[in-house]
């Protein structure tokens, strides 16, 4: 098992990138009224055929040759199952893949959100030539940012991988998510733990 939701997101998104996706959309949806936490990663990568799709939750299935187990998706599915949640994967060869997982928010085993900004930053540094869109919904409110928005300012994709820019992106998202979840930014500097 991985430690928190942000690590699952990183792991699942890395699959999308290995599937040669040029664009990956990541959405976290925290709904306190319905008491549910939802995660969705969708990509426009090579996709899986029906045979691969039927195997993907089997930990002894992997397309890689370096090792003979593939634990990422089974881990996520198990985490969702443990929290009265659901897990789903849809894919079409040549079209892309969508993975969704949900968790009962107040379940004792519900993974904490973790450091979601660090996950998005890591993806952008590791894959500056690909495009990411990140969206965090908290009840009716949305914080959204992504490669395309940042490139309007940066213009050069290579800057996404520079340390200074990457750390700024992480902090920008940290603040955006904080504001969203607390309904304002008054306490951000006091509460902020880098």
């Amino acid at each position: 098992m991985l430690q928190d939701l942000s690590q699952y997101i990183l792991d699942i998104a890395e699959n999308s990138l290995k599937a040669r996706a040029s664009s990956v959309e990541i959405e976290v949806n925290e709904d306190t009224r319905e008491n549910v936490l939802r995660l969705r990663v969708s990509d426009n990568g090579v996709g899986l055929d029906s045979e691969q799709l039927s195997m993907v939750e089997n930990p002894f299935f992997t397309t890689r040759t370096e090792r003979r187990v593939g634990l990422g998706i089974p881990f996520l599915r198990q985490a969702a199952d443990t929290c009265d949640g659901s897990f789903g994967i849809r894919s079409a060869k040549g079209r892309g893949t969508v993975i969704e997982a949900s968790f009962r928010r107040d379940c004792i085993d519900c993974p904490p959100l973790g450091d979601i900004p660090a996950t998005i930053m890591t993806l952008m540094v590791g894959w500056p030539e690909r495009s990411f869109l990140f969206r965090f919904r908290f009840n009716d409110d949305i914080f959204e940012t992504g490669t395309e928005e940042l490139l309007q300012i940066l213009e050069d994709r290579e800057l996404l991988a520079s340390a200074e820019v990457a750390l700024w992106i992480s902090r920008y998202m940290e603040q955006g998510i904080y504001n969203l979840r607390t309904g304002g930014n008054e306490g951000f500097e006091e509460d902020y733990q880098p």
Partner: protein
Amino acid sequence: MKKITSLEDLRRIKEQSKDLTSARSGGKTRIIVGMGTCGIAAGAREVMTVILQELDRRGLKDVAVETTGCIGMCQKEPLVDVIRPGELRTTYGDVGPADVPRIIVEHIVNGNIVEDKVVGQTD
């Protein structure tokens, strides 16, 4: 009180860092962090974050940070490779955030390998 982060700050970083990518063509040192499921579970993302913080803090702009998937040495994760221009690729294993400043100062800045963390060297 520190300023609240805004997209304007990013514009400023871009303006001030014309030299940020100036060394892109000529021999950059590369740092490669394993970011497979095994690496992530072992804490590779935290190691990556500390690497970026150290590079930023020391103003080391001619270092490229990259990620890679699982290379089959899952038990040694987090794995971090360092390649200085014209030198062998050094693979460090079981790298924790506390090892990062040492690897950056001793290897990347001064060119001395951090022996006790080395897993292997390749071309």
